[in-house]
């Protein structure tokens, strides 16, 4: 596809359940980022992949959150034992070269996660 694709666009889950959020980056983009945007806030960094490996996972809030990118393309963000505070829009972005200096990250439309 032409842009970054995220599925599902909306996800409602019960507290305590496990969820997976998927990101299909732009073809050929080696860097992939996950951000979380809570209501009234700016996007908050979660994790950054360079190829298959996590280059920086310092933004993951706790060990309930995990992300993978096994073949260096599609990435999945996994959240275990979801809590109501996990409700947010989860944004994925990809970029052609590592880092974001002198380039731009292209964002997907996001997955709106609601934990009830």
């Amino acid at each position, binding site marked *: 596809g032409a842009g970054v694709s995220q599925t599902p666009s909306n996800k409602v889950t019960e507290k305590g359940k496990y969820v997976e959020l998927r990101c299909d980056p732009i073809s050929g983009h080696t860097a992939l980022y996950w951000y979380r945007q809570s209501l009234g806030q700016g*996007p908050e960094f979660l994790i950054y992949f360079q190829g298959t490996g996590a280059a920086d996972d310092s933004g993951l809030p706790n060990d309930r959150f995990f992300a993978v990118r096994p073949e260096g393309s599609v990435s999945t963000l996994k959240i275990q034992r979801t809590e109501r505070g996990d409700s947010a829009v989860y*944004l994925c972005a990809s970029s052609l070269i590592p880092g974001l200096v002198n380039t*731009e990250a292209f964002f997907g439309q996001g997955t709106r996660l609601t934990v009830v």
Partner: protein
Amino acid sequence: DQQVKQNSPSLSVQEGRISILNCDYTNSMFDYFLWYKKYPAEGPTFLISISSIKDKNEDGRFTVFLNKSAKHLSLHIVPSQPGDSAVYFCAAHTGGKLIFGQGTTLQVKP
């Protein structure tokens, strides 16, 4: 602690006038700054950027000014158009990732 701050949650201007969106930051090691625009139910889209070695960058109706001594940057939109109505995020680059401000909602009235 908020390293990138946008202290005005909203701004309303008349069509044809100038819109000025402000952003403050605390980390002098940020080397690049970007502005993103976001419409409802869409992801943020890149608007304009500036390197920390410059003090101004212009692209059509959009100009970004950087004042490093004050750790302040601003986005000027002139003339403003109703289609510019959106949420604008300021972001700073460090270590391969972006740190975003809280956003400013701009409304341009016809």
